[in-house]
């Protein structure tokens, strides 16, 4: 017998280790089989690539340890799901803390001894240099950290329940929780408002919670965080693992938290719950709510997919009433299902009281209304007061004339306010669009907020609608150049004049669309830019719209393409320190036709004065 304060019982550890020998034996066998496969290919890999990529080794080993973490936790704490065994074991003169740590340590050894042996074999089998052991060791530590978290989470799952199957389900659900949350947020956002951003969850208010959730789910950890460390024969990769490997050890924080939680769950659990789906009564409403909510979402996705509703993220709003109905129905079905599971019977209607029949539907409706009212999911157009300036990108899917479309900038408060209202109007109109119709344009808006952050929004739009025409007209009339190019917001302006022949300028990638175009110019002095700009403004005043944003240009009538490269971003980066690099120079393109007499005259004058050079050799 152990002493009063002993944390471990040798007898219990030994019993677990011998009783469940098939578990660690199969794990070891699996790992050795993987090892054999990798080592057998090793010579070819080294010959062909000159190095051994440990990722080939790490991923299957990580996968196996995650799987066996669960199996082992189910085995060592599985006795708590069997009344007979639980009563016998808890009649023994052993304290609960001793029992917990003994079973825990037995399971821990069962999971990690095979992994350790596998690493030793690997180190012995492959021809590694002394310094490469460091990398191998780092990989081992990473797998250890991830598996440690996985094993502890599996223990928590098992100890939260008093049923093996239920424990396994909770473990898998928890591991998939991150992805479930991401899908749920995207789905809700897409269904509630028209228009999404692909990177919705990578920044803004969801980024921190998502990172934390990712850390708390071993599956996500192995999927995202695990690093590729290459054992290179010729050169060292010390810097690589230094910054890649160590952040991944942050998973040890949730791992330790899981362990503490598992310990307290074990200490506090009532043994008489053995066999129940959940060991704690407080967990039942949580389990019911989560199960109901996710089953509702799954039900909707399933029906929309199977029912061929033409469902897509962008068009979810158009079938919002169907979605609401299906969500409520799904919630009701999910609630009945979880009640059946918890009560272990199919015949639950006799147990339910009248209000429980409407509870899930009412609950789901309240959730939807609450989320919508709070706007927590998706602020698709921020308030004008929050905006510093707006950047709009429009592209045409049937043309290659822009790479990523032209960018328009608005920073005056009345512009922002007007544009915001127009955007809302446009979105409202587009939201009603039936799901079967697909838009032909992408309307991208970057809201640069006063707090320095940026919100990206992207809307598929039908260019024929009035609201879109209004925006385009406004963009033109607001005189983008006036406010961005000339007033000093934009610096280092460069102007190209291009005929778009097979000759490429350094900033223009368009090829030979304009048969009637006359000249190609490059490296235009700043003064030419100003002259051209003034000429464009003159044309604009006389009612000729040279901007491509007014409407799609008539290619055949185009004589010149005036291309402004604006280095707004460099300027902005000074102001907004975190501006991303890929948003570098913006391009403004103007299509000049015969009616733009002032611009044509200015160009011809500049050519005559040889300030603009015809690179194609044309006159």
């Amino acid at each position, binding site marked *: 017998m152990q002493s009063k304060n002993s944390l471990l019982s040798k007898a219990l550890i030994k019993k677990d280790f011998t009783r469940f020998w098939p578990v660690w034996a199969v794990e070891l066998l699996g790992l050795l089989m993987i090892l054999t496969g990798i080592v057998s290919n090793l010579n070819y890999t080294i010959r062909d690539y000159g190095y051994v990529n440990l990722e080939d080794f790490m991923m299957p080993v990580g996968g196996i340890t995650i799987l066996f973490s669960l199996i082992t936790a189910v085995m060592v704490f599985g006795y708590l799901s069997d009344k007979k065994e639980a009563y016998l074991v808890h009649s023994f*003169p052993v304290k609960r803390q001793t029992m917990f740590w003994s079973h825990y340590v037995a399971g821990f050894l069962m999971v990690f001894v095979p992994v350790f042996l596998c690493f030793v074999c690997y180190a012995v089998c492959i021809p590694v240099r002394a310094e490469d052991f460091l990398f191998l060791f780092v990989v081992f530590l990473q797998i250890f950290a991830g598996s440690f978290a996985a094993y502890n989470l599996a223990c928590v799952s098992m100890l939260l329940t008093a049923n093996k199957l239920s424990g396994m389900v909770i473990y898998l659900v928890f591991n998939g929780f991150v992805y479930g949350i991401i899908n749920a947020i995207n789905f809700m956002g897409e269904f509630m408002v028209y228009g999404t951003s692909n990177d919705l969850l990578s920044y803004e208010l969801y980024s921190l919670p998502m990172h934390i959730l990712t850390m708390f789910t071993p599956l996500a950890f192995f999927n995202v965080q695990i690093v590729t460390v290459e054992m290179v024969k010729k050169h060292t990769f010390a810097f690589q693992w230094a910054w890649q490997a160590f952040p991944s050890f942050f998973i040890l924080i949730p791992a330790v938290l899981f362990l503490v939680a598992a310990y307290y769950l074990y200490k506090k659990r009532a043994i008489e719950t053995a066999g129940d789906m959940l060991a704690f009564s407080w967990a039942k409403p949580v389990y019911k709510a989560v199960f109901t909510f996710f089953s509702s979402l799954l039900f909707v996705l399933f029906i929309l997919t199977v029912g061929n509703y033409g469902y897509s993220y962008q068009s979810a709003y158009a079938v919002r009433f169907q979605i609401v109905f299906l969500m409520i129905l799904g919630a009701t079905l999910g609630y009945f299902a979880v009640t059946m599971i918890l009560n272990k019977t199919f015949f639950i209607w006799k147990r339910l009281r009248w209000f429980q029949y409407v509870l899930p539907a009412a609950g789901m409706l309240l959730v939807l209304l609450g989320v919508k009212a709070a706007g927590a999911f998706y602020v698709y157009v921020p308030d004008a007061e929050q905006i510093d300036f707006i950047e709009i990108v429009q592209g045409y899917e049937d043309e290659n004339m822009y790479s990523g479309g032209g960018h328009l900038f608005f920073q005056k408060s009345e512009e922002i306010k007007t544009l915001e209202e127009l955007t809302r109007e446009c979105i409202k109109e587009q939201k009603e669009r039936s799901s079967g119709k697909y838009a032909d344009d992408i309307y991208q808006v970057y809201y640069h907020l006063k707090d320095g952050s940026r919100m990206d929004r992207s809307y598929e739009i039908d260019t024929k609608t009035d609201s879109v025409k209004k925006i385009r007209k406004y963009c033109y009339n607001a005189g983008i150049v006036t406010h961005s190019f000339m007033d000093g917001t934009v610096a280092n302006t460069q102007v190209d004049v291009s005929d778009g022949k097979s000759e490429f300028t350094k900033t223009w990638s368009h090829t030979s669309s304009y048969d009637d175009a006359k000249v190609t110019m490059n490296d235009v002095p700043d003064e030419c830019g100003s002259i051209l700009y003034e000429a464009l403004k003159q044309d604009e005043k006389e009612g000729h719209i040279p901007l491509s944003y007014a409407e799609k240009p008539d290619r055949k009538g185009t004589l010149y393409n005036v291309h402004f490269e604006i280095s707004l971003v460099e300027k902005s980066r000074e102001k907004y320190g975190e501006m991303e690099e890929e948003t570098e120079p913006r391009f403004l393109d103007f299509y000049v036709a015969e009616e733009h007499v002032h611009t044509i005259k200015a160009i011809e004058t500049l050519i005559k004065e040889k300030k603009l050079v015809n690179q194609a050799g044309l006159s």
Partner: protein
Amino acid sequence: MIEGKEICKSFDGFPALDHLDFHVPKGAVYGLVGPNGAGKSTLLRSCMGIFKVDKGNIFVDGEEVFENPHAKGRMVFIPDEIFSFRTADILEMKKYYQSIYPKFDEKIFEGLRECFPELSEKKHVRKMSKGMQKQAAFWLAISCRPEVILLDEPVDGLDPVMRRQVWNILLEEVAKREMTVLVSSHNLRELEDVCDHVGFLSKGKMVLEKSLESLQGSISKWQMAFEGDCPGFENIDIMHHSDLGRVHTLIIRGGLETVRKKIEAYHPLFLDVLPLTLEEVFIYEMGGEDYAVKEFFTE
């Protein structure tokens, strides 16, 4: 030896033990009797420290049992359904018990071998019959040399010879080492033979707790006949009354001589005391707790 004070234990709001008090003296064989669902098994598991009681305390020799390895090391529990590890034989289980229980006695284990001749030490316990599993459990339990043994339906599944054998072993331990036995059973006939104390449980409460001697002295069964109609029997605590013609049979609470005097005051034609079994005591006591045997009529 074992003392419970104001014990409460409920499951999902259902009170299995409801402010229950009891006391088992050292060296006693205490029988727990009660209808199904009275709380007997719950009480035994609480005494063994498997369940944590919601309220009250359970002491063994003055020590709290729950989470107390020292107290639990002196106790052994044999449940109604025996558990053994999947592929474990008796020897393997013995090794396990040996490493868990501080007083496990190899000599006693060897000595008991001949008491259970049908048991094969190398056969998986799970593959044994229910009765044999019970025998194996007794073998291991007695080998732990417990000061207290808790038995839940202990001889259920054992043949008559083995029942006698098991009780002999237990009573010998009681006699030799003053081992305390707390046993729950529905076999009242058997309990009557071995118990010296009885506790009647009903709906989680201890209805009656007495030594068997005083219990049988305080309730008696009388048979009598009167010349005319049966009198009203005022001042007599009648638990049950039945008649066959003019012959009346009464179960009466109270001392033997006191009751005799009271009945004789009605001048019966004849009066006789009949032996009262524990089963009858149980039935009539429980009848008062609304647990009487109901008659069932079919058309």
